[in-house]
């Protein structure tokens, strides 16, 4: 059996390193590698004004580079410090869909996702990201409190 892969759904919430720490600890024990994915919530059906349309490409580039430098790079450094091999992905779209899709493409054994992330009121109305992932995931999913 080759090296295992764990996908980590990682938010840019700086207080929420629990999921990352948990995944790193598990990966370290199992000798697995991590794929850390950060999703910028985006719908192709949202409404944009003329000005926003014209600036969209620029904004997207800025969003991607910010996510890379503020979210993914620190996370990768954390993994590296613990001696765990890790790669990062930044994507636009629906969080749950993209995390589950990434798990499939990476042939991951587990998905790690933090329980926090969206506010309680929001979660009650729209359902929370971890619940959505748990429902559509095709591999075992660890929800980290």
């Amino acid at each position, binding site marked *: 059996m080759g090296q295992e892969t764990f996908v980590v759904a990682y938010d840019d919430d700086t207080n929420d390193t629990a999921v990352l720490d948990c995944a790193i600890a598990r990966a370290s024990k199992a000798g697995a590698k991590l794929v850390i994915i950060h999703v*910028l919530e*985006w719908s*192709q*059906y*949202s*409404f*944009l*004004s*003329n*000005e926003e*349309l*014209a*600036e*969209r*490409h*620029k904004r*997207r*580039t800025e*969003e*991607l580079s910010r996510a890379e430098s503020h979210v993914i790079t620190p996370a990768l450094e954390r993994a590296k410090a613990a001696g765990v091999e890790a790669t990062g992905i930044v*994507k*636009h*779209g629906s969080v749950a869909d993209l995390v589950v899709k990434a798990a499939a493409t990476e042939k991951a054994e587990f998905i790690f996702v933090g329980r926090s992330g969206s506010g309680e009121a929001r979660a009650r109305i729209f359902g929370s990201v971890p619940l959505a992932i748990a429902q559509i995931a095709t591999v075992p999913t660890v929800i980290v409190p």
Partner: protein
Amino acid sequence: MRLLLTLFLLALAHPAAAQGIDETINNIFADYTGWYVGLIFANLPGTNFSWIALWLVVGAVVFTVYFGAIQFSGFMHSIRLVKGDYSDPDDAGEVSHFQALATALSGTVGLGNIAGVAVAVGIGGPGATFWMIVAGLFGMATKFTECSLGVKYRNEYPDGSVSGGPMYYMTKGFQERGLPGGKVFAVVFSVFTILGALGGGNMFQANQAHAQLSGVLGGYPGWITGVIMAGVVFIVIVGGIKSIARVTEKVVPFMGIFYVLVSLAILFKNYDDIFWAFGQIFEGAFTGLGVAGGFTGALIQGFRRAAFSNEAGVGSAAIAHSAVRTNEPVTEGYVALLEPFIDTVVICTMTALVIVITGVLNQDPETGLYIWNAEAGRIATDAGVQGVELTSAAYAASFSWFPPLLAISVVLFAFSTMLSWSY
């Protein structure tokens, strides 16, 4: 602000004087712009069909033939593009086809659909609707052409922002083919667009907003609406207070959806009259059903209003569609061809059906012909209303709460159109 208030109070105190101000302003504009309006909307010799409407129709027919009726053969492909079936997942976060279409639509759906249709049906009778639909269908090919060109020849700047439109594609396209005059056409287009923005983009909008407001609030002098709207537009464009614009831009699409839903509700309520109304539309298209000018009267009004509403061939839409991120300019053309369909074939037809069904146009019960008010040059209506007030009266016949909401929508539509012309 205080000055505005003083003027407002003065006007209330002296309605006659205020009426005088309105007339003076009207006269000044008629004196200065009369020749220009006369030139643009000049009729072909011996007819009452303007050359500009004919030009747009001829263009639309040529594009339709040249591209093999792309508006029909490519229709399903357009829908699939908008749904995102062909979008590259790695491009997520860029402007999608759906977003470009939604933004362009929110620019075109507005007073043209509400007031313009009422003008067409009021003068040309229900038959004008048929010709409006025909013009809308042909206009789809025009939109396809201009938006494909808009994307193909747009300018991309180092910071990633883009701008496009007829001024760019005429300059570059002519150059590419080694033809002279591209730059000249581009300048001419720009000058006419500025003049058009002033007339259709601003004056017509403020005028109709006032018509609906004074219909709901009771008559008051028109210059007050004019000054207030100009003031707010000034604050946003020159003063840079973008928050007002942002709120308007986000609210307007919902106003459009709301208008469509109310229209559907009225049609649903009167579903047994829909076939009759379509009958009137078809019959009127070829006989006029009593309107002056008969068949041609209906045809001219229909073609004119369709062009005004969906802006096919005017070039303004190409500017908005140019922002989409695609390596295949033609895909945006496919998406853009849905615009005249939604705007004219669907929404304008809904307004026309409501006006016809609710019976606000006076009809002779014996002959079935519409009663012509020769003095006003249009079909006689209850209380003699026209334009946006006619639409309002038709909708009020089913839902009495509608006029105040329509007034709010009309003001917002007018306002957002004025702002979008500043873009």
